């Protein structure tokens, strides 16, 4: 496989001054296991500066999400496979967050909604003791929420979020509400909140959220279904 090249068309755009987006074609030498992030780094280090985001390089921080041929992927996790060497790979930023430049989107947009997402154990009737009286079922229920790295892949791909034009906050933000709805430490009426944030807009499309989740989570189950099943406490 020597001398094989990965062929990429990379989106470039500075909204503050460019008329519109442009795509630049690059070729990056292939090596087995090369990731999209490796390609971007190669371009930036050896050809010309391009702007993209990354941190942990091991699919835990959820910073490097981009679209490859239209589908959201974690750039550090997505390895180029041999069948993809025959195509041109289009690399674009997410559209569900504001664009900063090229492939970097503004993840600070994820922060405001989370301010109110804290359980209120003092109001929940849970005894004031440490450790809190929680059980294995609760731990098992909460686990998947901790494993979501907020990469926005599900938000990017969700057709209901796009269609509902702001009436539906999208799978990730609904996941935040769902987490608290099954939390015995919380006393907020999260089901009312979920309804207000557009829970009914989700029509369980072929569960695109699950298909793209890089953490392999059953997003539909933990973000939507749990809320629809209702209060089981």
């Amino acid at each position, binding site marked *: 496989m020597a001398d094989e090249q990965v062929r990429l068309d990379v989106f470039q755009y500075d909204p503050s001054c460019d008329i519109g987006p442009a795509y630049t074609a690059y070729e990056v030498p292939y090596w087995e296991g090369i990731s999209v992030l490796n390609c971007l780094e190669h371009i930036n280090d050896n050809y010309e500066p391009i702007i993209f985001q990354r941190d*942990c390089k091991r*699919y835990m921080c959820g910073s490097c999400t981009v679209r490859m041929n239209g589908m959201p992927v974690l750039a550090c996790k997505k390895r180029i496979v041999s069948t993809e060497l025959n195509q041109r790979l289009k690399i674009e930023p997410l559209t569900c967050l504001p664009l900063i430049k090229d492939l970097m989107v503004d993840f600070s947009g994820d922060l405001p909604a*989370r*301010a109110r997402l*804290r359980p209120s*154990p003092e109001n929940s009737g849970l005894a004031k003791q440490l*450790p809190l009286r929680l059980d294995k079922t609760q731990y098992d229920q909460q686990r998947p929420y*901790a494993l979501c790295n907020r990469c926005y892949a599900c938000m990017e791909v969700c057709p209901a979020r796009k269609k509902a034009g702001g009436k539906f906050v999208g799978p990730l933000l609904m996941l935040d509400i769902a987490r608290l709805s099954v939390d015995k430490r919380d006393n907020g009426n999260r089901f009312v909140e979920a309804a207000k944030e557009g829970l009914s807009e989700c029509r369980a499309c072929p569960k695109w959220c699950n298909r793209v989740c890089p953490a392999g989570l059953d997003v539909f189950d933990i973000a939507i279904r749990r809320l629809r099943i209702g209060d089981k406490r």
Partner: protein
Amino acid sequence: MREYDVIETDVLVIGGGLAGASAAIEAAKQGCQIILVDKGFFGKTGIGAGNSFGYTTALIREPDTPEKLIQDMLDVGRHINKRKLVELFAEGIASGTILKLEELGVIFERDEQGIIPLRKHGAHSYARTTRFTWQNAPGIMRIGLVPEVLNLGVRVMNKTLVTRLLLKDGEIVGAHALDMINGAGTVIRAKSIVLASGNAASLFGQRPGMMTTGDGYSLALHAGASLTGMEFVSCSLGLVNTRLFPGLLGEPPTLQSSTGELPKMYNARNERFMERYDPERLEGGPKYKYMFAICNEIREGRGTPNGGIWMDITGLDENAPNREFLTHQLGPIGIDVTRTKRIEYTIAPFYFIGGVEYDTQCESDLPGLFVAGEVSGGLHGAERMPATSVPECIVFGQRAGKHAAKRAGKLSRTPGIAHEQVNDEQARLDGMLGTKGSCTPGEYKNRIQNIMGNRVGLIRDGSKLDKAEDELASLRKDIGTISVRSNSRRHNSDWIEAIENHFLIDAADLVVKASLTRKETRGAHCRDDFPKEEDSWRKRISIRQKGGLLSMSTSKGI
């Protein structure tokens, strides 16, 4: 000279990781106005957000006692820890600081009876640790700390890089920061600063993250603060193929089976080499034993051609505590842990035991500069115990926040800055723009990494360290020739990387000079030419910058 914004706050927190977030929460609860700056996107950066898969010391359960935890830490730290800080740490654990995170939405493991099953890590005399899924620290950040920081009205400034601390009359008065997106300089005036900027992991090849470039060590050094223990860098293990997977992947205890059986390690000759180094405990012995063994096997030519050893993972059964972690991480690079028998591992330096010195109020020797987390030094002595990094960040992050707030409460006004310092700083930074130099910032960083990798490994010696010192000095002379391909201040990633290279080379110098000074082997600092632990060296080394030079001193206090 160019214009810059000047904003004002009570407490400025530099770094949005576990320690920074904890400090911001505590200071905000005291009623202070807080600005938290992060050079990435808050919640997605640093070791805590993306490189942590371990356990956390959380609970002291009878017959364990805080005093026993203290003894363990002093023992592993080889008795050069600051005892008072160790006491504060133990007190923090005993008083439920970690358990209190469950009030924010974090939840630690529970068994069928609803009890937290505690795990006993090698160096701990008792079972003390638990976790919030295998993504313990990221979970604590995302679910617990980030929402609470926001809930308390802390102003978060993302993509903001602090480049210099500002002083007046020997006290901290603020910091100069760069907006990484539009390149504007901002002066943040503050009554107190909590420095929680993490480590300099980027010194050692492609290991944890890209963002931790030793900023805090350099900032503190140039401000005149004292640092201690920079010679102690803890090592762990990762794949030999760092290009394919740069992160850490755990040590023998991480890879234990569901029944606690540890993986066996083999060299290139298929020998279970631990039989020579620690025949009784083998892979179950103390960390310094197996880490030395691995390093020695490799350097004596019995390592694999790629420079590693074989870790046998056949025992990693379905209910092994970290089976899920390994599957999640190795699956995407084509390693099926259900079928793979052995993985090629090598040494990976990763944790900075030393750092900016602080007292029981988390204040450095610069009034107004508080520190917490991995950027700080003195708690762990010569080596850190496992499962103590996350709790260190939480316990001391809170403490730093509390005392930073207290100081802010006592000051009636935010002290003024000296604008000449800002002008000097902006001139320094602007001078890097558009340089048509001899190497890219990435290449320069690689050179630093090569020096550290070749000369400052787990097993050190004087001649290699001398070479490292010379090579770094030579590299430093070239720092003005780092290419910054654009003249623009906007979105200039070369510019940012060049600035970070300045931090990195300072951090490298600190590690090398401290390592040269300590002529013995103690804890994580291992010297071939001085292989014994010497009583005469049962003390700490402190470094401070005086007149542009590094000045060393030693101390023994608790």
